[in-house]
């Protein structure tokens, strides 16, 4: 199996001499093609920083990150945005849809900035929309949609460019439980049917239980790692709760 993401001993320091915060402190791990990996940790554990450096929005202080064999820590600014739009797909907690565009146009935008031909744009949007069951909201504006619909549109936008890696930052953070479940099922479907590689950051155990493998982070370091294996989602969920209790924080978020 191919390694999509290879994180090698990365560190991220904030602040200057005498007052240094180690947000990420020597983290290494790998994500293989077709994997659905969750990253959990309490607030301030460094999981968002980790996601930011992987998504090339932020730079590491030391170490290397290889995505599909390319070291993104050495890329220049312009090749970074090119890399970002070709290799990565993003799903954000607050959807980050453009309020002035329809759902269709929001999805299309990911392709137009890659200069994809108009004819192909339509074909690809129709295909993804069918998978995510958002055909009937394509002509609506974000303010006309429910949170779940918005997030599925955002997922469609992340997926449509066929990225090597989809990064999801608290995708269910702004959704009610029903919408959350629907979205997670969609993500599961993307993962199994389309072989999409997903890395999802969350502090919600229920959301995390949809992943196949979970990395726990605390104080900038990997604290634990659990694999779902052949166990059911329910068993996996209980396992997650155990680790979260061990971590000693954030239990208020556990369902």
């Amino acid at each position, binding site marked *: 199996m191919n390694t999509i993401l290879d994180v090698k001993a990365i560190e991220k320091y904030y602040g200057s001499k005498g007052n240094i915060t180690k947000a990420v402190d020597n983290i290494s791990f790998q994500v293989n093609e077709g994997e659905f990996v969750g990253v959990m940790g309490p607030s301030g554990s460094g999981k968002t920083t980790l996601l930011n450096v992987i998504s090339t*929005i932020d730079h590491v202080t030391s170490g290397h990150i290889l995505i599909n064999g390319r070291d993104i820590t050495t890329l220049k*600014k*312009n090749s970074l*945005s*090119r*890399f*970002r*739009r*070709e290799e*990565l797909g*993003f799903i*954000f907690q607050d959807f*980050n*849809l*453009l*309020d*002035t*565009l329809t759902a269709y*146009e929001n999805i*299309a*935008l*990911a*392709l*137009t*900035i*890659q*200069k994809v031909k*108009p*004819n192909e*744009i*339509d074909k690809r949007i129709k295909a993804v929309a069918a998978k995510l069951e958002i055909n009937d909201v394509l002509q609506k*504006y974000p*303010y006309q949609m429910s949170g779940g619909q918005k997030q599925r549109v955002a997922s469609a*936008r992340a997926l449509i460019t066929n990225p090597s890696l989809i990064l999801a930052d608290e995708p269910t953070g702004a959704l009610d439980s029903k919408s959350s479940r629907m979205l997670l099922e969609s993500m599961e479907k993307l993962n199994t049917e389309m072989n999409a590689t997903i890395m999802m950051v969350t502090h919600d155990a229920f959301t995390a239980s949809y992943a196949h493998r979970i990395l726990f982070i605390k104080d900038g370091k990997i604290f634990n790692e659990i694999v779902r294996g052949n166990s059911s989602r329910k068993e996996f969920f209980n396992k997650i709760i155990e680790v979260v209790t061990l971590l000693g924080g954030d239990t208020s978020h556990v369902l």
Partner: protein
Amino acid sequence: MYFKLALKNVKKSYKDFLIYFLTLAFSVCLFYTFNSFQAQQAVLNLNKAQSQIVDSISVIMGLLSNFVSVVLAFLILYANSFLIKRRKREFGLYMLLGMPKQQISKVLVYETLLIGLISLIAGIALGLLISQLLTVLTASMFTVTLNYHFVFSFDSTFITIFAFAVIFFIVMIFNAFIINRYKLIDLITAGHRNEKPRVRNLWLSVLIFLVSLALLGYAYYTAIDKGMMFVETLTPIILAGSIGTVLFFLSLSGFLLKFIQTSKRLYYRKLNMFVLRQINSKINSNFLSMSVVCIMLLLSIGALSTGITLRNTINDSTEVTIPFNYTGVSNHHEIITELVQYAKDDSRIKNQMVINSYQDKDLTADLLVPYSKPMRKLDPKNIKNTPLDIYKLSEFNRKRELTGKPKLSLKANEAYMFTSLDSLTEYVDPILGKNAVLKLYGKEITVTNKAYELEQLGTAQAGYNVTSASIGLVVDDAYIPNNALPASSIWNVNLNKGVSEKKFQSEMSDKMFELQGQKAYMGHSYLANETRSGVLENAVGTSVMFTYVGLYLGIVFLVASAVILALQQLSEAEDSHHRYQILKKIGAEKRMLNQSVLMQIGIYFIMPLGLAIVHSFIGIKVVNSVLILFGKLDIMSSSLFTALLILIFYGSYFLLTYFGYNRILQQEKA
């Protein structure tokens, strides 16, 4: 302590204040410069008449300044409220920390004072420089020598400081009022509120767009067809024009969106659809200001180009209208005859001549209609009441001889047709070459010339047509009966070198009125006399006046419209910040983002300018048909000059906006 805070604020966010500050400084500079005419006289070697003109220019500039200061006051208030809005969160923080509202107002008062003071000093300093240039310009327009030293206008400085002190005072009151009305919760959550984009039916936009085009078309058509001289036609033109303009901007973005959507290749290309939607989403709040900007630009272009066109025209036509040192005219030929008699032995006269114009009441312009198509458009009653001006060949040739032109030769039954007025050539030209046969005092005569020269029969002010032939006919002396009385007599005199035209004129003028007083004339009567230097001075004076009025108003309106657009775009940059942030996250390159910002601002700046240019193209065409009375118009150079000014002022605000927009986008938001 509060002053320190104000000082820090201004220092810290000088980039935010930049547009505000520049606008203030520009305004101060303009105000100072155009109020400094009085002081300019000190270095100009003007004669009495010229300094009178400069006096009246400064009076007019003073009056205009009242109007301009009101415009600037509104502009500065607008710019100020933009800045205040940007700082809502900052004020929220002050209030959260327990600062009372009066004290926040106090900080703002200090800030206003500080910026006001800096911009006043900078503006007056800049104004001092520019007014020196203006002095040189004035000197070159009056063609007088410059006795140059640095000019400082105390009066203008005083007026400028006073006017802007009042404006700043209003700004302070306004700020206090705004701060008082703010609620803490609104300040803290400022920027969080999510505006729902109002979606309008795109087909409705297309419909409104077509209606606006129809209205504009109607306004243009009426303006060209009927002219803009009368209130009855002016009102519908202005109404249709302004409603058309407002509707145009209301529907433009929707129409553009619909139109470009039909081409998938264009719509789904890079960030095009984002930019179009971006503009469309804001159009509900922007169309009015865009319309106002468009109309202000129209006024600006109108003021600039007409002012300058008139100046050029007056200068050009002056050459034609001053063939003699002195000309006396009256419709009472005996006054001229006696005047000539009176000056018979005057040794100052080098040479002289009298030319009479006769009128045959049966030979009126309507008889020419069959030969001249354009004449059919004129009011038939009017042309029936317009008799042709008839001149004796001998007198006409004497005039040509004295002005250094070859004599005409006509056979017995031949007539030479001409006009002195540029505006009439289009009616007269078609008559030529057709051998038109007319009846003059009962005898037939044929118009045989194929061309003519535009010539005046004496010296007169441009536009003052006592020495012009509207449609003139030169015929053999024998055609005119001995008992025919001249309709008007013109006495042209060339004086010897070194003789004062002014003195000669005032003597002759006194004599004329004395002669008129001796006889009790009935009905319409006129006496006029003019000198070459009088015409020249007047022409220069008028042209300088028009240039300066045009420059002053034109630049004020230009700056005002650019400022409105710039501020609007910058406040939009705030709202769009998160959208551009999203684009960045999904991988749009910086170049692509810059292009999209450029396109967006470009559309906002170019649209009003474009429509204003179309408007003014039509408007100036119509206005010119009025101005043509002054003579041939030179539109080219004035258009170039206007374009240059627009490029400088509008262009610099465009660039400021572009960089400001990018700067706001790059700011990290808390």
